[in-house]
């Protein structure tokens, strides 16, 4: 079941600096939602408020109507939230498969003692999720890399591995932080195809922070434009691109 995400008057302050000012919007279940804005607009800070890595100074964040503001990130995984990071942080010495399997953590049963004696239940669960992880890699064109140490892959492939890791959590709400940053053109195309397939096959709500306007235009149902920590406008990607306020905020940057 895809999740609904509601933000109401979310504000964030670091000392005297207002990073976010009363940002409100709702992401409907199953939507692909874009969060755009110039550098320093507060997009990633807003992301961190949703994922629990920052604690908003004021306001409320709800997933399916449940208040999650102030919850720890580790608790939010239980609400079906998964995220990727701007700079993919993989365990470089480990294989791609081991990295992806990290996403299975909350789905694997049993305590430390049970895993130390390798009870049949833990063996079975590990085997099943291993197969699922391999399948996930396969579907995202990374099956060949499953047993390769992560540090032998390119930056773009790291992003793919990180996405698979997040997907193995079976999230209902997926936050993607600049998934296209640093990717060559053809890999952006692949990424677009992957996210589209996610929505049709996996029934999942996706929120994307992105600079790449092409990707935003191709993927999102709706966008919110942030500028200086405040919501500038909300609408479709096409509306955003033709809105004079947005163009102004982006002046000197690549707005089109």
């Amino acid at each position, binding site marked *: 079941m895809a999740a609904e995400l509601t933000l109401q008057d979310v504000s964030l302050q670091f000392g005297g600096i207002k990073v976010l000012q009363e940002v409100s919007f709702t992401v409907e279940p199953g939507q692909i939602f874009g969060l755009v804005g110039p550098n320093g607009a507060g997009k990633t800070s807003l992301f961190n408020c949703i994922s629990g890595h920052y604690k908003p100074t004021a306001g409320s964040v709800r997933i399916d109507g449940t208040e999650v503001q102030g919850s720890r990130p*580790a608790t939010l*995984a239980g609400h079906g939230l998964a995220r990727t*990071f701007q700079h993919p942080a993989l365990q470089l010495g480990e294989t791609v498969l081991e990295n992806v399997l*990290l996403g299975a953590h909350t789905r694997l049963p049993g305590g*430390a003692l049970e895993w130390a004696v390798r009870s049949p239940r*833990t063996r079975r669960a590990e085997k099943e999720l*291993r197969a699922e992880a391999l399948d996930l890699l396969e579907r995202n064109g990374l099956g060949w*890399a499953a047993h390769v140490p992560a540090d032998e892959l390119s930056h773009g492939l790291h992003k793919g591995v990180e996405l698979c890791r997040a997907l193995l959590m079976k999230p209902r709400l997926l936050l993607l932080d600049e998934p296209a940053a640093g990717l060559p053109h053809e890999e952006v195309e692949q990424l677009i195809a992957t996210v589209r397939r996610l929505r049709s096959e996996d029934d999942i709500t996706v929120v994307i922070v992105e600079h790449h306007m092409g990707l935003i235009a191709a993927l999102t149902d709706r966008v919110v434009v942030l500028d200086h920590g405040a919501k500038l406008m909300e609408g479709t990607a096409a509306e955003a691109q033709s809105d004079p306020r947005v163009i102004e905020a982006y002046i000197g940057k690549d707005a089109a």
Partner: protein
Amino acid sequence: MASASSVSSAPASSAPSAPPFRQRPWVRWALPLLLLVVLVVAPLVLSEGVNETLARIGVFAVAVLGLNVVMGYTGQVSLGQIFFLGVGAYVTAYGVQNDWNIVGVFALACLIPAVAGLLVALAAARLGGLAIAMVTIALPIVGVPLAKRLSEFTGGSQGLSARFAETPEWTGLYDDQWQLYVVLVIGGLVFVLTRALVRGKYGRAFAIVRGNENVASSMGISPYRYKVLAFTIASLIGGVSGFLYMLVIQYTSPETMSFGHSIELLAAMVIGGAGSIVGSLLGGAYYVLIPELTNQVDPNLTSLLQGAILLVVLFLLPGGLASLPRALTRGRRRTRVGRGPAATPSTPSSTTGSATAEPAPTERQGHA
């Protein structure tokens, strides 16, 4: 070994046709079996001196293993591991002197250090980073005077000696053989259980807490809880090593848990290999053998020589002695990749595949 042909077909079928040598079924059964036979026979044929040395290596290998759980695998610097060995040893000595049931003594020697470790960790893990190291430094520093003060239980500065686990007559074994067998059984069990734990779910969780706490928490892994867990397990294993210490050395004093020993234990872990099961064994061997070796060279230069060995090993093998095979295979792989056509990893061509798709013989790789 995975051949080029099996890799180029990998996109179609995820299972490689020929599993690598270490994962073939008969190898997975034969190697442990062989090891078991060697371990059963060895105490019978080796001399008394060698048996005693092996038993001492076993004791400290267990202690290093515990340290590895919290520091090598979970990345939390602990300078207090020797304290838990000391507590385990004292609990054992006290229990034996009061004629408690030996199984109960063993349970207490595990439980009391584990509870002590849990309490320390609940506070220390809140601090994070090097603060944990600072808190754990306090353990041996407080432990030594505490052991002197509580002379009612610890025998003060004179320490406690206790002989227990007399060799049962039906075995027909000598004392050194019997002790080594007990160390092998208990220590072996701890190693097998820990090895299973640091792979799979908990191994990955510990590793990501060490690697990146933000990622850990976004995967539903609470860094705090897993640090506390790792520290508690390390303390428990420390307690087991304390029990074995009393079995083999039969005497403990406040000096047992001095800060210097804690640092030596840490050096042994780093030299053996942080985050490695085999490394813990090598670390135990280092802890016992190297001081004897340097003493033979020149007793006045012991510390200096040990420092030199530490530096040389870390310079050549930052991953410790246990990383030697991996360093060799990786080096070979790098040169092969370098010689091959320019790697374009975004396209799974058969050339890049053949160079890279072999599962690396990493530790923590779970069963296939």
